């Protein structure tokens, strides 16, 4: 009989002490966060945790005392009391007061989180199935726009390659922000609801299609901060990470300038004709990054139709371009016109028309894409 009591006491005390032990190692507790707000939230979290822990210990102590000392096998006779307005009032009021004690710091932190005024930089974040678009808003209208895709390979995910250090948490093009600067995020979505979360910045905001939510951060230390989409957004919800590089102001300015010139270069590149090999090579890369999740690594289809032997990929170029640029309404096939550069679009269409046994021999040039877009 008695060893059971002991066993139970052990299990339960282990449970109660679990979180305490958890504090020792960072990865089993909430990220402390690098920002001021993050630290506040962390403090709040620990405060409530300790309050609950203390209440828990008190409550369970009483319970275990009864379990051990007021057991029938010890031959006790049960008391018969069953009411006491006094204690009942006390244990209604005390928790209430404790709650007020929690609500005060919670309120001030919340107000802080909501204060998005006076930001120096505005970044429009748009969630897509299953990638993020970052648009650095510029007063002169010279916005910098790019997409940020998962960089982990299908081979790693399907266990044929060893998994890298930042498995599922690295992207092809990270968001870059300067340190010590208040950055405002304007969060929205293109299709379904996503949620943009970077734990160490303590920023989590849902991306609602058709509405814009605001959030902000001010990062004091340079570094790479990673996060993930946290609202179920379809099949590949688990595969749309976030990577934020906080860099010095100079680095940021240089990066922004480079992005701007890249944009100019791309427009120029769209004017040039490219060779078949070149198109196929970059087309394959684009295909693997953008299309293979739905259309299969070998064009065999999946969420999307098969590309191998597809009537569209073997038919008129114009129709193929139409599908690639505008998507197919009401299906998972989205409009890639705004997501891929004209060069990439030309490359991937060329690739689809000449890979997986589709031997049309067609070469689609960036200029064709531009023309198609202009109608």
């Amino acid at each position, binding site marked *: 009989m008695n060893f059971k009591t002991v066993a139970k006491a052990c299990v339960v005390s282990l449970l109660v002490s679990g979180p305490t032990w958890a504090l020792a190692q960072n990865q089993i507790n909430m990220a402390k966060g690098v920002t001021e707000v993050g630290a506040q939230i962390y403090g709040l979290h620990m405060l409530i945790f300790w309050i609950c822990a203390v209440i828990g210990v008190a409550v369970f102590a009483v319970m275990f005392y009864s379990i051990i000392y007021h057991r029938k096998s010890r031959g006790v006779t049960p008391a018969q009391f069953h009411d006491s307005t006094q204690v009942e009032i006390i244990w209604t009021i005390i928790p209430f007061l404790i709650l007020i004690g929690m609500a005060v710091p919670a309120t001030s932190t919340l107000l802080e989180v909501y204060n998005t005024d006076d930001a120096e930089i505005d970044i429009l974040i748009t969630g897509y199935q299953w990638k993020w678009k970052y648009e650095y808003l510029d007063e002169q209208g010279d916005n910098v726009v790019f997409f940020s895709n998962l960089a982990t390979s299908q081979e790693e995910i399907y266990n044929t390659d060893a998994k890298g250090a930042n498995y599922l948490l690295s992207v092809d093009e990270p968001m870059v922000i300067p340190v010590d600067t208040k950055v405002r995020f*304007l969060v929205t979505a293109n*299709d379904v609801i996503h949620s943009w979360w970077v734990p160490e910045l303590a920023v989590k905001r849902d991306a609602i*299609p*058709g*509405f*814009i939510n605001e959030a902000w951060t001010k990062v004091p230390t340079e570094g790479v901060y990673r996060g993930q989409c946290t609202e179920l957004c379809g099949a590949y919800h688990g595969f749309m990470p976030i990577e934020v590089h906080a860099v010095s102001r100079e680095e940021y300015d240089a990066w922004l300038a480079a992005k701007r010139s890249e944009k100019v270069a791309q427009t120029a590149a769209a004017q040039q004709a490219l060779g078949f090999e070149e198109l196929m090579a970059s087309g394959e890369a684009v295909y693997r990054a953008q299309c293979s999740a739905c259309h299969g690594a070998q064009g065999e289809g999946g969420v999307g139709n098969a590309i191998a032997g597809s009537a569209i990929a073997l038919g008129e170029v114009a129709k193929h371009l139409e599908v690639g640029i505008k998507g197919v*309404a*009401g299906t998972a096939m989205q*409009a890639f016109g705004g997501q891929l550069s004209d060069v990439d679009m030309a490359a991937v269409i060329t690739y689809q028309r000449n890979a997986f046994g589709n031997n049309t021999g067609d070469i689609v040039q960036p200029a064709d894409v531009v023309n198609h877009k202009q109608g």
Partner: protein
Amino acid sequence: MASTQTPPADYEKYHVPESSSLAVRATIGLITTVFGAALVLNDMTFGDSEAPSSAKWVLIAGLLFFTATLASWFGTAIKENIQGLNSAQLSHSYVLGMFWFIFSEVMFFAAFFGVLFYVRQLAGPWLAGEGDGGRMNGLLWPGFEFVWPPVTTPQESVGGVDSQLIANNGVFGTSERSMAFADAHHWYQWLPMWNTIILLTSSFTCHVAHAGILKGDIKKFNRWLAVTVALGIVFVFLQAAEYYEAYQHFGLTLNSGIYGSTFFLLTGFHGFHVAMGMTMLLIQLIRSVKGKHFSASDHFGFEASSWYWHFVDVVWVFLFLFVYIL
């Protein structure tokens, strides 16, 4: 503490029906109906609508079977009542059942009214870039201004196409006119006003019928109940006329953005409930005329239907206020 002994003198046995196939039949009917409905809807939306479909026959069969079962269910309950199986306590169970059923209906409509208030008071202004919730929304829907009834949808405000940032969400048009009171010169052509008058009157006539039966005046009861049913029919007819007008002349459809959505949702479900209530009253009328089922002390079937009718009426008053007037 408790003992099972001789019953108190005034104890009437509670009638627990032996066993009954009604529930299983009703289940088959209901499930076939919804299964058929799902098939029909999917053909319509996802399938190849050209292809001949047998889906609708499943739906029709389900509906027929379900209706027939409900009819025999109520028939059984009525028969039991006539046989005198219903004690006062059992009748009270029916009263409670009807009351809480109506309460659940109240909550059903409450949800829809909640939706209306939300889009009018919160979502609409946010889409237009106002307030805490959507300060920056002008980025998405430049030029969208929110007024109620809305003359335009966000989508139309950006040129009828999808917003730059929102893909594949379907096409939402707007209507030329709302159903609100527009033309003071032709006020008598404004159907909602007539419908209000009709429903309020019918609630009154229903009450007169009730007063009649309470005095045992079956003639009066039948007469006024008939008037109530007739008013119900006129209401449904006028409602249909209003829908026709909306679709044909105002361009107001289910696709006309949130105004059309809330308008048809609220009035449509209300209209459906009027039709149900009217059918219930009609059945009571037939019972009274043909079967001579009711007396001054025993007319629960009618009472329950009349509660339902008053409920439908009250919903309309709110509807009239919030959908048409305010």
